[in-house]
């Protein structure tokens, strides 16, 4: 049986007396794509941060390729090994890129850190190529790039370490639709080429529909529904999933009815 790229088993995390993540479990197969959907305060971002290691879980376990993910220790080597398991792309690439470092330098630095003592010229070109950035962009600083280009850089940097899992936290939410479409297509291509697994955190059900195979719906820290994306979106079982689906604007949309349903739930 092939290992799963990522498994979360019974994750718990409370902030004070508030359970932010309450018994969350899911499985992401190798080369798969799992969406976590929910609104502010649902616990989707805290779950993602536990997976990445930016937040610790009070209880539960995260496994990458069948091996339990260490929560710390091992010094520098341990930290680098953990970074090679899971990488993250954030909503605003402007905040996650050093304004003084050129695109090529960003990639070189990451490669030098993780794969020292080898020649990286070819790999840098390969990565730029993979995310559709030309040689002119390679010399640019982040502020000289558009939002879509910056997100391509963030993706290239994450791919540089060849992680098993890429966590995308609202990674296309801040982009214009035409650019968003380019990045979504790019992510689909990369998954096909590399068999990397995606954990896609988003509030946008149209995006979930496009880029995920499976989905979990979170509300107030708990998983209220889980299943194949196509099935959950076509025949939602939980009233909260139905409310989320009905809230997506479309012709004939009735915001007053949604507002009433929301208060009733």
């Amino acid at each position, binding site marked *: 049986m092939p290992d799963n790229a990522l498994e979360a088993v019974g994750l718990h995390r409370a902030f004070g007396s508030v359970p932010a993540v309450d018994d969350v479990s899911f499985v992401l197969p190798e080369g798969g794509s799992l969406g976590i959907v929910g609104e502010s305060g649902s616990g989707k971002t805290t779950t993602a941060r536990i997976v990445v290691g930016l937040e610790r879980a009070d209880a539960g376990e995260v496994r990458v390729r069948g091996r339990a993910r260490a929560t710390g220790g091992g010094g520098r080597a341990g930290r680098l090994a953990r970074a090679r398991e899971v990488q993250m792309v954030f909503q605003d690439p402007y905040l996650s890129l050093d304004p003084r470092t050129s695109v090529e330098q960003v990639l070189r630095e990451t490669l030098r850190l993780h794969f020292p003592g080898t020649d990286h010229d070819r790999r840098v070109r390969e990565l730029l190529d993979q995310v559709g950035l030309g040689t002119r962009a390679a010399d640019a600083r982040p502020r000289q790039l558009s*939002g879509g280009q910056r997100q391509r850089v963030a993706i290239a940097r994450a791919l540089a370490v060849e992680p098993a899992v890429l966590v995308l936290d609202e990674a296309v939410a801040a982009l214009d639709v*035409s650019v968003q479409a380019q990045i979504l297509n790019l992510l689909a291509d990369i998954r096909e080429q590399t068999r990397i697994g995606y954990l896609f955190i988003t509030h*946008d059900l149209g995006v979930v529909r496009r880029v995920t195979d499976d989905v979990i719906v979170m509300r107030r820290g708990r998983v209220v529904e889980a299943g194949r994306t196509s099935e959950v979106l076509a025949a939602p079982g939980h009233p909260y999933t139905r409310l989320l689906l009905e809230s997506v604007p479309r012709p004939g949309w009735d915001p007053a009815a949604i507002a009433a349903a929301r208060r009733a739930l």
Partner: protein
Amino acid sequence: MTPTRTPHALDVQGLRVTLPGTARPVLDGVDLHVAAGETVALVGESGSGKSLTSRGALGLLPPGATVAGRIRVRGHDVLAMKPEQLRALRTDTVAMIFQDPRAALNPMRRIGDFLVESVTLTRTMNRADATARAGELLQAVGLDASALRAYPGQVSGGMLQRVMIAAALMGDPELLLADEPTTALDVTTQAEVVALLAELRARFRTGLLFVTHDLDLAAAISDRVYVMYAGRIAESGPAEALFARPRHPYTAALLASTPRLEAPGGRLAAIGGHPPDLRRELTGCPFAARCPLATELCERQAPEQRTAPGLPDHRAACHHTDRLEGSPVDA
């Protein structure tokens, strides 16, 4: 102003705005109107000029800008107004709701003080009347009058956006400008805010200009839609017709690149290339470089607005609008 017809809440004609150090105008001949009680969506991507257009209605144009054309609010020429007239315009006639309510509120002052200050500062109302009115409006937007005593940090983003709507209605505006008012909100909260705006519009006959990048939201809430691209109106018309049968290749391409729940899976039809650079002069159609229908004519000559056959309200600035149907961009 003709006495027989109520002037539009907002009427923009041939608005052209040029900023220092740019090679082409940021707004280039924008024509747009919002009738009393009408909801109009202004749709476009970053840098298209949609926010600049809506801010123009408040007389808020960037310093150093060269402005031509006309902006009228209820028939009054905004560009010719003196500072005190502008101040009256902004308190009594036009109000604006922004994307991020937290950025627009002083976190150290109570919500009640924020609500009453605009009308008391201009002496439109005394403090007691203003406080009573603020309490009423908070109830109208679904909040308890006790929120008057709360600080912005004590309420959620959705509640705060409702406070902003209440604040915008304090002066009984005839025109409400909403610039991406729901973009930062959750989808179910968005529905609540939109429902509220629709209800208030029906009650107070306020004209609403809703600026958004979300085509589906625009289609769902508005009577008419304007699509902007590179400082120009690419297409305008009744929401339903514009989305069912777009007349401009840019509108068609935007619709095709939006990920939807109903659409089939697979690759999205992304629009290649970038919008034109402000540092370069534009001769022809601004969308020509990215347009699958573009010909030599498009590079040479900017297209005029043309009316769809049988639909005088539905206009598109495209030389090849008649070739759009059945073409690769007609998704």
